[in-house]
């Protein structure tokens, strides 16, 4: 399919898409206020936790990781589809990425910013978080490069840096376009942030090359970051964690959840800013196809885990995988199965996957399901480890709930500000894939 757009003029593209940047209405302010209140809730809870001790969270022996690491993995997962859409699909020249990739990239950056908070929040002594960095210090001490957590530090910071660079580079021509339409303060802001972009052929020459390299670098990064996150678990010896299928399983899950989050965010945006011409049903169908695919991978991984636990004849694994569906917190397991394996099956039906409301619902269900998946992995595995006398359970506390809510506020706060400040739709690239104007044969000389 060459293009799904009605042939509209470049001016119309600019007008339509830059209209998003018009001064916000009451709805936006309300949403921002909600997000900020959530951040305040989380900040309050965290301040108590820092001042008095991490014990205010429900995590306890033997479940040392709980909601915070669940949130961390959840947000890193959300981050994944952004880079997938912008980098991997760029390399595959999948044209349907164009209208969604900017918002997906923004989601990536903000989700990583959110995720990056959690390893610090979950520390017992968060004021010493910088000890995880290999910086020269008077103690002569370095860090342990053998620890998966240190790999995390490198992977997440690399991911944040690279995805931010990729995001900003993609933004420059669009900011330049916005600059040339804007007035006043905005014009000044865009003049600075567009770095003086003019779109000369000398710039485009390097830009296109560099963009390709960023995409090429980001593609293995997408795969590696969630693999590294999964190694936090897979590198340990905990029954239910110590398994080689974690990296592909986590990466697929991450893309799965990220796509769902893209749908969750774009559907209201499409409605609010009347972007139906740009974000068409066709785009959503494409995303649904990917969701069905990744849902399948995730389902397969669940089955494999059970099969291997049975086949290995390892009593610890076997017990663990008996405990998940039938144990104390089987709600998480069955919730996960429903949300991640069963609910997405409805997308096989064209009628349902072209129904925007249904899609929105399913995307939220998938988000919940993927959160439950991580909670399920973390909670159940830690609660039933090797020595039965040390088994224990976990009730999460209001502090963890508040901080989780706060993380959503934090994420949406960035996103809301972003869509009002910078072009949230990649107008340059939309123009690029439109058929360029040729000389009108009728008015040609000779």
């Amino acid at each position, binding site marked *: 399919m060459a293009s799904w757009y009605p042939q509209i003029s470049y001016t119309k593209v600019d007008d339509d898409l830059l209209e998003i940047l018009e001064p916000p209405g009451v709805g936006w302010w309300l949403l921002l206020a909600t997000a900020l209140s959530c951040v305040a809730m989380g900040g309050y809870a965290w301040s108590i936790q820092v001042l008095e001790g991490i014990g205010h969270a429900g995590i306890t022996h033997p479940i040392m990781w709980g909601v915070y690491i669940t949130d961390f993995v959840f947000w890193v997962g959300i981050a994944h589809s952004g880079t997938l859409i912008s980098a991997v699909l760029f390399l595959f020249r999948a044209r349907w990425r164009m209208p969604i990739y900017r918002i997906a990239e923004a989601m990536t950056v903000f989700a990583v910013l959110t995720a990056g908070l959690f390893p610090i929040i979950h520390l017992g002594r968060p004021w010493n978080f910088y000890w995880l960095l290999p910086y*020269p*210090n*008077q*103690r*002569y*001490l370095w860090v342990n490069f053998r620890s998966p957590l240190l790999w995390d530090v490198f992977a997440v910071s690399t991911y944040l840096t690279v995805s931010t660079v990729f995001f900003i580079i993609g933004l420059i021509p669009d900011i330049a376009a916005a600059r040339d339409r804007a007035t006043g303060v905005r014009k000044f802001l865009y003049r600075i942030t567009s770095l003086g972009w003019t779109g000369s052929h000398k710039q485009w020459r390097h830009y296109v090359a560099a963009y390709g390299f960023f995409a090429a670098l980001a593609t293995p990064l997408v795969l590696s970051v969630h693999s590294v996150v999964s190694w936090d678990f897979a590198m340990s010896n905990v029954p239910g964690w110590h398994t080689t299928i974690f990296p592909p399983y986590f990466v697929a899950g991450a893309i799965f959840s990220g796509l769902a989050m893209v749908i969750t965010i774009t559907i209201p945006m499409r409605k609010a800013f009347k972007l139906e011409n740009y974000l068409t049903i066709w785009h959503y169908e494409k995303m649904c196809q990917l969701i069905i695919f990744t849902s399948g991978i995730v389902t397969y991984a669940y089955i494999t885990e059970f099969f291997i636990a049975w086949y290995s004849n390892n009593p610890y694994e076997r017990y663990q995988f008996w405990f998940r569906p039938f144990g104390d917190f089987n709600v998480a397991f069955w919730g996960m199965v429903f949300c991640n394996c069963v609910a997405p099956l409805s997308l096989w039906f064209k009628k349902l996957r072209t129904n925007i409301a249904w899609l929105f619902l399913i995307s939220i269900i998938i988000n919940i399901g993927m959160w439950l998946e991580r909670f399920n992995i973390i909670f159940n595995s830690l609660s039933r480890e090797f020595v039965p006398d040390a088994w224990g359970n976990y009730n999460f506390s209001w502090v963890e709930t508040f901080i989780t809510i706060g993380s959503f506020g934090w994420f949406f706060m960035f996103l809301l500000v972003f869509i009002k400040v910078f072009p949230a739709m990649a107008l340059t690239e939309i123009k690029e894939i439109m058929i360029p104007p040729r000389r009108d044969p009728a008015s040609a000389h000779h």
Partner: protein
Amino acid sequence: MNVRRSWILIIICLLSTVMLGRLGAEGSGSAVAQSTESTDKAAGVWRDGKAVFSDEPMLDIFNPYQRGYKPEQPIPFSHKLHVEKNKMECQYCHSGVAKSPYATIPPVELCMGCHAHVRTESPYIQKLAEHYEQKKPLEWEPVHNLPEHAVFNHERHVKAGVGCNKCHGQVNEMEVVEKVSSLRMGWCVSCHRMNGASIDCSTCHY
């Protein structure tokens, strides 16, 4: 031209990396009162192929016990007078130093051993005697303090031949005792490294 610019950029990048790494090392010229032994002087240089970033005074501003700390004591005891003029040995008063983890501050009784007769007219000796007679504890200001998580054993260091001045400086020349070493971990470690002592964490932390 492009090629040349690229190389300049690369060199700048590399240099700044190195500079960042050396940041801690740069400032150690420091206004240390008495830099006594090589342990102190060696700090802040590249040595034996290892970077030494110890003792940066930059970070000392956060440390209440930085070098040069020189508190006023309840009785202005002069080490210089007692050691240089009266030729007293360190261990006469700090008797625990070779048999205990602590060097120990002498009991007031020991002071009174001499000062019941010597210089009794001095107002400070009278203050000392007052403390002794009224059984009122004498509260000295600590100069050399280690955090509680660091275990230090004077006995082992003295028996290994580490002189008092290695860490405490030339106390015999001090009217008022002053902290001449940072007593921070890197400072300890560099001396341990140079003398082949263990740098295993559990040597000092348990």
